[in-house]
């Protein structure tokens, strides 16, 4: 939305009653449905477990240790923690240098600062040399109400073009824990989107084990197949249940590894005839999961009815997350509304 459009929106606005106003928030706990259990700092605790087993693991942050859950590691292993200050370019360069000396650095910042500010350093110092640097970055997509300066709505689009890089977009606390172990064991550079703080847990309802590079069918359904990544899998699971109440039978294929994409599994499930495939992602509809899946399917001769749920190609508003998620079509209710609309037309 252009500035003038945004201004005219404010001018036309009726003030909201103070009691109804929601606070601007970056609380990840609010992503899950009410009643979902949460786990505190799953990434930080997983990294500590790994570091107890491996002396080569070190942590770096660019003045965001407390906000990327790396403080848990820093407290447990202060001598293996490097505070690099508010300097993302040198943090990723230094991570490359540490990796060259045989260490396995986990470097954290916000996704916007990695993708936008430090891209060239990640590309040349880390990815080109195929180094074992793990970049774990908070506030992916629309997970903060602070506006475009903090909303990494295009990080997947930016990073997908980078050779050698593995990209992971985990769903919940259970998966973050498992994925942290998996990326530590993986040789090569990884970019992982991070949900930090109190993170909801939903995949423990399934017999789920994260596998790097694998998409997994959580539930099958005859009419609609959701293909989702990140916290949108929480939303598609919830939407699936609501739609089933209305007699619409949906399934969920969770696809947490964005690159390399699990084309074989996608083709297998999306080729099943007669159902609508709906991708759902916490990212711009440009260059993320949806377009990756579309490309993979088309190149393999699979052409289902296909729709994409994702953030629009615009700089998003600031505000309260639940309001913004609904406004931009990625709340559970909005997912349900869109699917019903597409089935009816």
């Amino acid at each position, binding site marked *: 939305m252009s500035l003038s459009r945004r201004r005219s929106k404010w001018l036309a606005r009726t003030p909201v009653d103070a009691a109804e106003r929601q606070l601007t928030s970056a609380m990840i706990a609010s992503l899950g449905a009410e009643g979902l259990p949460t786990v505190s700092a799953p990434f930080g605790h997983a990294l500590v477990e790994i570091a107890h087993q491996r002396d080569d693991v*070190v942590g770096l942050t660019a003045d965001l240790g407390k906000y990327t859950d790396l403080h848990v590691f820093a407290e447990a292993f202060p001598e293996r923690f*490097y505070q*690099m*200050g508010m*300097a993302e*370019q*040198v943090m*990723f*360069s*230094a*991570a*490359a*240098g*540490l*990796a*060259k*000396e*045989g*260490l396995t*650095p986990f470097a954290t910042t916000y996704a916007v600062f990695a993708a936008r500010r430090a891209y*060239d*350093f990640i*590309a*040349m*110092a880390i990815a*080109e*040399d195929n180094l074992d640097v793990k970049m774990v970055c908070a506030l992916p997509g629309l997970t903060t109400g602070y506006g475009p300066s903090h909303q990494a709505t295009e990080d997947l689009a930016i990073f997908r073009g980078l050779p050698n890089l593995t990209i992971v977009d985990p769903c919940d606390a259970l998966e973050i824990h498992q994925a942290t172990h998996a990326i530590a064991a993986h040789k090569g550079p990884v970019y992982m989107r991070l949900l930090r703080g109190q993170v909801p847990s939903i995949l423990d309802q399934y017999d789920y084990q994260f596998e790097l590079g694998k998409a997994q069918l959580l539930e099958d359904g005859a009419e609609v197949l959701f293909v989702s990544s990140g916290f949108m899998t929480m939303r598609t699971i919830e939407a699936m249940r609501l739609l089933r109440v209305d007699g619409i039978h949906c399934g969920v294929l969770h696809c947490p590894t964005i690159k390399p994409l699990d084309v074989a599994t996608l083709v297998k499930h999306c080729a099943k005839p007669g159902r609508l495939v709906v991708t759902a992602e916490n990212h711009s509809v440009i260059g993320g999961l949806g377009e990756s899946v579309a490309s993979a399917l088309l190149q393999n001769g699979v052409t289902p009815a296909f729709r994409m749920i994702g953030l629009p190609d615009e700089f998003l508003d600031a505000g309260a997350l639940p309001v913004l998620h609904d406004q931009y079509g990625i709340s559970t209710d909005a997912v349900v509304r869109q699917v019903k609309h597409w089935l009816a037309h």
Partner: protein
Amino acid sequence: MSADLPALARHAWGIRHHAVRMGAVQKQGYVGQALGVADVLAVAYFHAMDMHADDPEWEGRDRFLLSIGHYAIALYAALIEKGVIPALELETYGTDDSRLPMSGMASYTPGMEITGGSLGQGLGIGVGMALGLKRKRSECFIYNLMSDGELGEGSTWEAAMSAAHHALDNLICLVDFNNQQADGCSRQVLSSEPVDQKFEAFGWYTQRVDGNDLNALVEAFDRARHHPEPVPRAIICDTTMCKGVPFLEAREIAHFVRVDEQEWALALDILQQGKPQ
């Protein structure tokens, strides 16, 4: 450490000679930079650094980072002079399937530690390698060679601040100050002066020397390695582009040397006449 200055002069000459021969192969290249920085490289590779020519990845080596990937021809010349790369290979410079591409990349060339070329990255990688060496309780040094134009990249100063904060006394930054960058004189494109005072203000032990004076370089490298304080070290080396080939030195546009075919032969002749005994 006492230095054999005549031997260093011969090595510097050898580096210049290899660089001009490679330039002649491609009929172009950053030969001016190579001629200018040859003395710095000679002192680094034949006086200061510990390394094994037959095992460029020896764990105990001092690490040399070429942040300025486009200076690859200079480093190849030094690696040939050192015996890391066979001299015959210089004929392949910049050709298909060569280990010596026009811009320096780690995955291509033995002795090339990093992929430089996107400027402003070497010093930051050096910070990480220096931290890594300290973790390993290694006493090796990291040498990062950068250019004066690179001082315009803000990431250089992030790295400078970081190196001082982390007390990286195993990191030595060499700045080749030849006052030339793509669009003209560095001081006119974007002045970084007073460079030495800037590094000092960032907490570095800083020296500024004539980068074409072997004796001055030897003393500066020695002081840098033996400085007692736990701070990173910078040596600003004022060099002359195309040093050693006067008709090229005199040219205005020296950032990227294109010379006529017969001039390559002339440059080699002039070098030959000045060959140290």
